[in-house]
Every structure is written in C-alpha cells, then in structure tokens.
C-alpha cells in the first residue's frame, strides 16, 4: 500500500517536530522539578513569545533565529519577575493556589494578546521558510532541521548550567530538599524565580524556532501545551532526559498516528498515552517519585 520510505519519512518528521516539543516540555519539567507545580501559564507564555518573535521580524526586521538572543533573555527576566513578584507572593506557599495563579495568568496573557492583536492568524515569509534538504530518499524542511539541532544545543547548555554552575547546584539542592537548602543559606524565593525564568526562556527559544514554519495567534501556544504536559508526564515530571526522550517519542507517535488515523484522531492517541501513563505510572518512565 505504501512504501517503507514514506513511513521512515513520517518518523523523521516526527523526530524533527518532537525536538521542539521537547524544548517546550523542558521548561515545564524544569519548573515542576523545582517548584512541584504544573505551570498552566506555559502555553500562554509560548503564545506571547511567538508574538514577540513575530513583531521583532515585522517591526524591526530581525531574523527570528537572531531574535532568539534578544527574546530569550527578555523572557528569562519576565519569568523571573512573574514568579518573584506575582506567583510566589500571591500563592502563600500553597500548591493549589499556585496552580490557580498560573491559570489566572494564562487566561490574562492569552486574552491580553487577543485584545491587542485580535484573533487573526499570522505567518511570516522568510527566504528559507520552505527550503528543504535532500537526504537521498526524501526531503527535509530546513527550518525544522535547524530547530532540531538548536533544541539539542539548548538542552546541553541547560544541562551544563545545572551541573557545573553554582546556580545550577542551588537549583538542584532546592529541588531535592527545600528546607535543607534554605538552612544552608540558599535564597529559595530567588532560586524559584531563576528556575521559572529558565523555563520561560526555553519557551521563548522554542517560539523563535517555530515562527519560520508555524502560525501565530493568541491561542497558538495551547496546541503545544497539552502535548508538553503529556511529554512531561511520560518522561517523568522534573526529569530533563525524560523530557527530551519523551518529546521525540511523542513527536513520532503524533506523526505516525496522524498518518494512520488522520489529523484529529491522531491527537487522541497522545491524550490516551497521557491518561494511561498518569493512571498506571504517574512518575513516568524516568521520574524518581510521584
């Protein structure tokens, strides 16, 4: 019926998009690993970053890949400020309140974007948007290959930050034993905010990598966020390698189930994996404990 080459192409395309999923999930899992809450504002922040990348190109003429170096630091600061001055103080140290505050922020940010930019869907045309690479048996989209490589670079940098630097050590200490870290003189509120900032910067980078091939609208981030939840749960909440492998796996699952079941039912496959993992093995494939 169809040649294995088409199947292989579907798998490779799944891996390429999976790397961007992994990047979004990386931010989410980092925040969960340290703060122990799911950041429901993650999708809205992705939408905001998509608009930032879009505007940087439209108004200032900055190439999205270059804009990464501007947008990622700004979103780090934004994430830091959100956690330090809004989420942290507003939730009084209660996990359920933190969920509510991030949800409130999600609704606020998404609708602020809707208010400012309306619901129109926008895309940008770049010279390389539709460039492809010939790999012999098939053609791969150049922007997707770039985002695949970039996602791994970002993950490696993040891994380095976490293992080598003092800040990384402090983050890991707070994640493991909050009270102990506090007694050792670590400023927990600062570490929380740094972590939230790093997670938000991951989303900003993902947005810059997506903009050349993806559309921008106020709810564009939501398409990714539920997938990112699935990846984080599958890979184990708080696990960085889990997010990477989970991201690639979900990319392939989506690509293949879309191939066999059609676009909309393909999504159900992802959610069923999500629910089954949550119910059967809530700590995920690589998670330490639930």
């Amino acid at each position, binding site marked *: 019926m169809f040649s294995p080459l088409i199947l292989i192409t579907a798998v490779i395309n799944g891996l390429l998009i999976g790397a961007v999923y992994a990047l979004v999930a990386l931010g989410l899992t980092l925040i*969960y690993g340290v703060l*122990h*809450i*799911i950041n*429901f504002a993650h999708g809205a922040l992705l939408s905001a970053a998509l608009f930032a990348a879009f505007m940087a190109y439209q108004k200032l003429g900055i190439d999205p890949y270059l804009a990464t170096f501007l947008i990622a630091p700004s979103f780090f600061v934004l994430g830091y400020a959100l956690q330090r001055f*809004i989420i942290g*103080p*507003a*939730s*009084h140290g209660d*996990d*359920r*309140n933190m*969920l*509510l*505050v991030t*949800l*409130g*922020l*999600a*609704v*606020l*940010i*998404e*609708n*602020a*974007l*809707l*208010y400012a930019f*309306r*619901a129109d869907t926008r895309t940008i045309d770049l010279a390389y948007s539709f460039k492809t690479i010939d790999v012999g048996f098939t053609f791969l989209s150049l922007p997707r290959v770039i985002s695949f490589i970039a996602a791994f670079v970002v993950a490696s940098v993040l891994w380095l930050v976490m293992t080598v630097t003092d800040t990384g050590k402090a983050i890991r200490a707070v994640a493991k034993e909050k009270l102990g870290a506090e007694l050792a003189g670590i400023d927990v509120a600062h570490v929380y905010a740094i972590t939230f900032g790093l997670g938000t910067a991951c989303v900003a980078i993902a947005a810059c990598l997506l903009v050349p091939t993806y559309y921008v609208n*106020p709810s564009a981030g939501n398409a990714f966020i*539920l997938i990112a*939840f*699935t990846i984080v*749960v599958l890979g184990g*909440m708080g696990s960085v390698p889990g997010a990477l492998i989970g991201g690639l796996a979900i990319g392939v699952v989506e690509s293949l189930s879309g191939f066999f079941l059609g676009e*909309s*039912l393909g*999504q*159900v496959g992802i*959610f*069923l994996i*999500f*629910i089954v993992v*949550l*119910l*059967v093995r*809530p700590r995920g494939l690589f998670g330490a404990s*639930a």
Partner: protein
Amino acid sequence: MRGYAAIVVVVALLAAVPLVVHSNVLLNFLVVTLMIALAGQGWNIIGGYGGQYSFGHAAFFGTGAYVTAILQMRYGVNAWLGCAAGIAAGGVVGAIIGGLAFRAGLRTSYFALVTLAFAEVLRIVASVVPITGAGVGILIKLDLRAQSFQFQSRTAFYLVILSLVAAALVIAQKLEHSRFGTWLVAVRENEDAALALGVDATRVKLGAMVISAAITAAAGCFYAQYFLFIDAPIAYGAWISIEALLTPIIGGVGTVFGAVVGALVVKSLGEGAKLMTGDVPGLDLMIYGAMLVLVVAFAPRGLVGAFADARARLMRRLASARKSVVEVTRG
C-alpha cells in the same frame, strides 16, 4: 437552620427579580449567570469542600448537554427525561474519572492534569464521531412547549435555572452539616490524618466527585435546552472548565453561596467591561484572569470569606468601642 433560612431569602429575592425587571437582556444575563453558578457549585463540591481542584469540569457539562440533545434528536426521548439522563450520565462520567484518578492516588497537579486530559479527549472524540454531529454540532428542534423543556418567555427559563441553583445550594448546605461532608473536609485538610482516623478517603472523594459531576452536568443540560445548539468546543471546551472553577474560587471556595456570589460578580464585571468598551474580544476574560490572581493573593477565602472577615473585624471593633465607652462612663 440559619443556613436554610439564608437560602430561602436569597432564592426568594432572586425569584422576585422578574416581577420588577422586564428587560429581556437583563433576564438573559441572569439566566446565563445562574447557569454558570450551577456549574460552579458542582465544581465547589469536589474542589471547594474536597480540595481536589479539577481543571476539566467541561467533561461533565458537555456530557450533560450532549446526552440531553442526542436522546431528544436521535431517539425522540422527552426533553425532561433526556435532561434527567444527562445528569445521571454526568454522574457516571464523574464516577469513572474520579474512580480512576483517586484510585491511582493522583493529587494537586496530577489531578488537575488528568481531569483536563479527560475533557480534551471527550472534546476531540465529540468533534469526530457521527452521533454528536461531529464538527457540525447538534441543533435541537424548536418546540416551544413546557413539556419539551422549551419556553416562550425567558422568565420561565429563569425560574427553572433558579430552582436548579436552589437545589444545588440545599445540597451544599446539607453536605456541610452531614457526616459525609465532615469526612470530605477532613480529607481536604489532611488526607493522611483522615485516613489514620478511619475515613475511607478514596470513597469519600469519589462520592463527592459524582455529586459534583451531576450538578455541573445539570448546567450542561440546561445550556442545551436554552440555546438549542451545542458543538464540541462549546460543550467540552476549556471555557466552561475555567468558569466552573473561577466562580466558586472568587465567590468563596467551600462555602454555600460562593459560586452564586462569584458568578454574579464575575459576569457583571465581564458584561460591564464589554458595555464600556463596545465588546472588544478578550477584555472580559482578561478581567477574569486578573480577578483570579487577585482573589487568591488577597482574599484566599473568596468574597464571601472576605465579607465574613470584615464583619467579624467590625463586630470586634464595635465590642471594644462599647467596652471602652462603658469603662469611660464608669471611670
């Protein structure tokens, strides 16, 4: 009994509104507000009293709406019976989701995620399978007779939704003073301690989930009859999950009147903002999001709680003022 008296007064006041107000716009606003309050009161049972924050109550709202519509349009069942079936079906879906989630021991973030995921799966399935009308949705045939749960006047619809809300208020009041309700609050406050005292936490949460789901499903049934149209993004959309959670949190989480107060405040602010700016998309929801953050930050027990605190403070101040007056006159 003071609790029930308060319910009677509030419901009587609300029932008197159509006697004074004849504006269809205002009545329509109140009908929609009470419908949201009903959905929110459902959320309040498991979220407020049980402390399990569901992010997917759309699963129950949508099931109520779809079962009502499908039984009527595909099987010719009477609308009232369809609604009863819709409420029961909501309860069953609640039992399934609650049973799976609580047995797996999911709490906070995990519970929020799994409820959200179930609502999303139902939304996608409903937008694909033929029985729900797939992407087109279901139109309920116009038949303006009381026996088919459709009314010429908005007042009649208003009184129906008000009765449903009154029933939900009574359920919450009964819950507060029952042994089951006490167990539920004990599980919310400290699940391990409740377990140690012999409370079957899983069963208690499951029971609350079923009641909660059935109430929210009732709001869905009403939606179908009032608007006579549903599709997947309406029935299972995130909007209703958010509004069902928002109203009791803003009004007063785990209180009898929280959802009603929250719905009235939230909807008034949303509509007010729309009127002032000429219906710019997103503005009302922006206000909802900001209110959610503000209430969690500054009034963790919601507006009802803030009001009770303010009253207690005033009483204390009055008492101490009286005392000092007494002292002065004695001295």
